[in-house]
């Protein structure tokens, strides 16, 4: 009885799949899916060779500080960093005093209330504050950016495939639309107000090129601020904001893995000892 019902149910599923398969094949022949510009011209990010990549990855503190400067002078005009506090910067080599001074001097103030009147007001940042958002709310952000919303950057390096490399490639990836693309896909011309960037999933990004010329940011450590260098430095900084515990994690990983490899051999030894003389 069970087997008869099973046979019928199985036959029904296979039959419907047969109809579905026939439909899929006939559609694929009569009406094949058109090729798309995104499919053909999208590029995977280049390897930015960040020191944090791989199992042995560690942050380069100098580079993180340069990246912070790029964020501060370029990105922070539009992008928030809402999960990162000023005090976290002590992890990338700043002293408590430097962090306080940096928070104090940050151009965007922290929203709050006026302690005397209770009205909405702003105040200077302190070390325990999160980085303030450049816009009061989403409507304000969209109004200032041609209806596009600049994403928060705290987690951007984990919120994109191959994030750290993606950030570096995207920032230097702006270019004119290739003639070949326009020849093959005349409808795919980059719309007014967007910018062609092959590293962006749909090729047309709303963000204007943020890094436009060498020397745009002046580095204090004497590193030459080429466009590539600035893109890599800010990618390194955003890798840190997304995963501030990366070095602790790698360190704990090595200790655990070495311990566990020894443990595996010990358990194998125990196993052999216990089973000695017992055929199995």
């Amino acid at each position, binding site marked *: 009885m069970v087997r008869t019902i099973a046979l019928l149910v199985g036959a029904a599923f296979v039959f419907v799949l047969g109809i579905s398969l026939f439909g899929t094949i006939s559609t694929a022949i009569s009406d*094949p899916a058109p090729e798309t510009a995104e499919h053909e011209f999208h590029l995977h990010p280049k390897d930015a060779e960040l020191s944090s990549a791989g199992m042995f990855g560690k942050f380069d503190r100098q580079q993180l500080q340069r990246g912070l400067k790029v964020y501060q002078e370029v990105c922070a005009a539009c992008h928030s960093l809402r999960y990162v506090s000023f005090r976290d910067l002590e992890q990338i080599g700043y002293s408590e005093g430097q962090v306080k001074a940096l928070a104090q001097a940050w151009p965007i103030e922290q929203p709050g209330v006026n302690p005397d009147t209770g009205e909405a007001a702003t105040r200077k940042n302190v070390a325990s504050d999160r980085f303030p958002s450049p816009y009061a709310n989403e409507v304000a952000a969209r109004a200032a950016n041609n209806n596009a919303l600049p994403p928060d950057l705290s987690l951007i390096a984990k919120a994109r495939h191959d994030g750290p490399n993606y950030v570096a490639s995207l920032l230097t990836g702006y270019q004119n639309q290739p003639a070949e693309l326009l020849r093959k896909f005349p409808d795919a011309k980059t719309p007014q107000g967007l910018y062609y960037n092959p590293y962006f999933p749909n090729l047309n990004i709303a963000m204007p090129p943020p890094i436009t010329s060498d020397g745009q940011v002046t580095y204090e450590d004497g590193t030459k601020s080429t466009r590539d260098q600035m893109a890599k430095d800010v990618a390194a900084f955003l890798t840190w904001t997304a995963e501030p515990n990366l070095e602790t994690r*790698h360190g704990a990983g090595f200790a655990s893995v070495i311990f566990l490899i020894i443990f595996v051999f010990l*358990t194998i030894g125990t196993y052999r000892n216990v*089973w000695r003389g017992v055929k199995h």
Partner: protein
Amino acid sequence: MSFPWANHYEPKQPLMRWLDEKLPLPRLVYNAVGAGYPVPRNLNYFWNFGVLAGLALVVQIVTGIVLAMHYGANSLVAFASVESIMRDVNAGWFLRYAHANGASMFLAVVYIHIARGLYYGSYKAPREMVWLLGVVIFLLMMATAFMGYVLPWGQMSFWGAQVITGFFSAIPLVGEPIRVLLLGGYAPDNAALNRFFSLHYLLPFVIAGVIVLHIWALHIPGSNNPTGVDVKGEQDTVPFHPYYTAKDGVGVAVFFLIFAALVFFSPNLLGHPDNYIEANPLSTPAHIVPEWYFLPFYAILKSFTADFILTGKLWGVLAMFGSILLLFFLPWLDSSPVRSANYRPTYRWFLIVLALDVLVLGYIGGAEATARNVIIGQLATAYYFAHFLIILPIVSRSERPRPLPNSITEAVLAKHGGTSPAQTALAH
């Protein structure tokens, strides 16, 4: 319960004797996973995975309870509270990565455990109840894993909840009310997040309860073994402790080694980047995909593209649930008296094809829906159902199995090239 030659618990210390009279808990443990449980001597490493699944559940419950101390089950703060766990809670990043990857380890271990049961016929008489309870545990795990994935309230959490609960709306008439009842609203929101959290905390303890029944039911006939032949006498078994505690120890060590490598060196390998973007009902991700352990079932769902009496969507939903529910009938679909696929030359090949088929379905479930992928998915889905519902009942009748060994001991000695009965005496 168990075999007449099983060791008996005899407490020697006065305190243990006292305890045994009042509450024989040590006796229970001794008989369940101690020297009082005789186990076939020929189990291979695939028999580690039951213990590993139990261990993975313990890891999930321990990390989960601590995470719940820091997590805010409210759609306004959920995402930020997870970030605060990652940044501000001491070792919070470790707890969260261990819990997220622990779910993957748990499901991976359970899939191997199920595959072991399929290959060696552990679902057959007299162990049908063990198998049925196992399928119940698997269903509970899937529900728990799905609801857990919603809790961080990222984009994939939100849209996954939207898609999965949307399955119910394919049911005619009552579908939409059921969906609204499940979500507590018309779309996933705070009500859904709250109830998912409540159930995500509850279900692991239900799973633990069903595991107790699963082990209880197992201990009545005793463990199956790679030959599938029944235990005939004392020479066929060894006490669980120390023999299999030692063997499971190796499995546990390797389990933790792989687990540690994942957690510490690529904790986001099995996750989706979009879940680091906070849930946004107004922005649909380009590709909504479930976690890797649901991909084969997702591929089955997507394969039904044609309407026939019912809508294609409803066929897909029925097939997706059916693909798991049919496992409940497996003990009666397979009429072959031979348990182990090692002695079933035809069925063995179909089973190996099934394993590859499920891997193909997993790949298709996560791949783009191009014509080529849809065709492969439809063929693979057809094989999945044909295997269990058509091929298995027929093959199990027509196949001529290879000769079985007379006993476990005979099989063991044949493997070692010896036949002398004197060698069967155990050294313990």
